[in-house]
């Protein structure tokens, strides 16, 4: 369905030295630097899959999405989606895709929301019957009724985002690109949006590529994740596999009677751990230990800590993806073979 092959995108950036002198220098003799926003990104997404596309800020996620949607032309490499090249037959290609950029809107800013939908209906040549059916479906999952007659500029962020998502789904696209669709939204709206994505994916086998920083988006929606960092592919596989590969991190929180400070050093030497396997945070009489439960079982860790400190209370937290991603980010680009 979606094939990306060795995508690379370079931007030319003009380097300006600080100060007025620097500005003049940049005006007459600009010093240019090539920034590689995406490098050798390849992946394949089969029909009906929801792919989570993740990475830290500035990793190049949006750049890749923009190449896949035909907005940017790759410097090298190519992509094929639905058997079409987004750059060569843009107009035909975009007919089958829906796109949401969380930071922008495709809605008609000055017009009532409903007008945008009737414009989109004509542009995508949706029949009256399909349009009606579609609108009632979108109304149901995204709750558009209450603001569909208000001008778009008066909508709240949550309303606008729901409206944008609805706009991207109106013409029953085969592929949906969602670039941070849940950014800045509250739990209820996030839930609405997730339900809409899930429903459209199940009912119409829509292929979805989703970028997000919200871990629950990934855990709830994505079959597979591709992680990129500094423009490079660092991980491609399922979430469970990622959890397995990158260790089961656990978090234990201890509360002591009085102020107690535990250092990572004591644990490292006492339990023979490497520095990647244990992290400690101290805050007065509370301290948190995050450790890799593959290397040291939770029981052993508890025993060791209990023997070392007078503990009043204990809390155990499950392994979560956030921690894994934090670890991956920290380690930086470690290309997978």
């Amino acid at each position, binding site marked *: 369905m979606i094939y990306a092959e060795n995508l690379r995108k370079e*931007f*030319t950036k003009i380097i300006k030295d600080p100060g007025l002198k620097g500005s003049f220098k940049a005006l007459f003799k600009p010093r240019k630097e090539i920034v590689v*926003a995406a490098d050798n990104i390849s992946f394949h997404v089969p029909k009906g899959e929801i792919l989570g596309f993740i990475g830290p800020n500035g990793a190049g996620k*949006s*750049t890749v999405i*923009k190449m896949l*949607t*035909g*907005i*940017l*032309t790759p410097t090298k490499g190519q992509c094929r989606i639905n058997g079409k090249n987004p750059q060569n037959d*843009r*107009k*035909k290609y*975009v*007919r089958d*895709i829906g*796109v949401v*950029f969380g*930071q*922008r*809107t*495709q809605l*008609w800013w*000055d*017009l009532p929301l409903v*007008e945008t939908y*009737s*414009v989109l209906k*004509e*542009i*995508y*040549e949706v029949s009256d019957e399909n349009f009606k059916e579609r609108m009632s479906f979108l109304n149901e999952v995204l709750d558009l009724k209450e603001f569909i007659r208000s*001008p778009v500029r008066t909508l709240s962020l949550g309303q606008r985002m729901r409206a944008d998502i609805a706009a991207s789904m109106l013409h029953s696209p085969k592929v949906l690109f969602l670039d941070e669709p849940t950014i800045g939204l509250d739990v209820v709206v996030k839930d609405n949006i997730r339900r809409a994505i899930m429903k459209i994916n199940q009912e119409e086998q829509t292929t979805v590529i989703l970028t997000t920083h919200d871990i629950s988006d990934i855990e709830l929606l994505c079959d597979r994740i591709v992680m990129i960092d500094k423009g490079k592919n660092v991980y491609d596989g399922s979430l469970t596999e990622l959890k397995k590969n990158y260790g089961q991190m656990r978090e234990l929180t201890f509360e002591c009677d009085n102020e107690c400070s535990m250092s990572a050093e004591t644990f490292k030497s006492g339990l023979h751990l490497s520095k990647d396997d244990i992290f400690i945070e101290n805050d007065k009489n509370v301290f948190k230990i995050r450790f890799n439960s593959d290397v040291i079982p939770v029981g052993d860790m508890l025993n060791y800590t209990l023997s070392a400190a007078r503990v009043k209370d204990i809390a155990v937290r499950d392994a979560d993806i956030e921690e894994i991603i934090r670890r991956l980010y920290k380690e930086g680009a470690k290309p997978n073979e």
Partner: protein
Amino acid sequence: MNKIRKQYLPFVRAGVQTLIAYRMNFMGFIIGGLIYCFVMYYLWQAVFLSSGDGSFMGFSMTDMVVYIFLSNVTGQLTFSSASNDVGEEIRDGSISMRLIKPVNVDMSYLAAEIGAALMRFAVFAVPVMMGIEIYRYVVCETIMFDLVRFLLYLLSIVLAYLISFRVNLCFGFIAFYVKNLWGIGILKNSIINFLSGSLIPLAFMPEQLKIILEYMPFASMNYTPVMIYMGKYDIDEILFRLAIQAIWALITYALSKLIWFRAVKKLSVQGG
């Protein structure tokens, strides 16, 4: 054809609705234009009074009044905000929202503008033209209105608008290379105002310069339709001028397409 109409008609409609949403802006535009016309009127009256015999380079004061108002109407009808719109969208990257739609990017701008142009025609151009005809009737004591000339004027206006739109579009594409268009936008407007005859009739220019300017695309944007309406051209000349307009419309069309296809490959929407 029907498909094109169906696809772009919503843009026309949205253009009208946007204009209505910003009524005050639209009114300001029109009232400002009228004030400008009256300022020009008193200015030229002073020129004509001091010339003595009431005529200047083949223009009577009556001609001049018609010219001032008509050239303003023509300017409003051929007005295109494409350079600002495109420039701004390229600069802030929102042009990407147009690229993800199965429509021609330039056509979508054009359609939205046509909506606004039709509004201007109905709300501004028609009343002012009626005013001009009443004025001419009062001064000359015969009806000067000529339906054939008026229709030719409309044809000429369409061509003038297309040229204006394409020139502005090309200009907007400069935003691919330059960060802020404001300064050179003012430069562009001054050049167009001067060379298109909307500031001073090209007939008042030195003969050689006038001949050159009449062949330039700028004259096609304002001077030609005004001259047609005023009956300053005979029918052969009208056809010749329309042909020149058509040629410029084609050239500017091709140029804007060429720049677009080259520049869009360079598009760099970073962040967001």
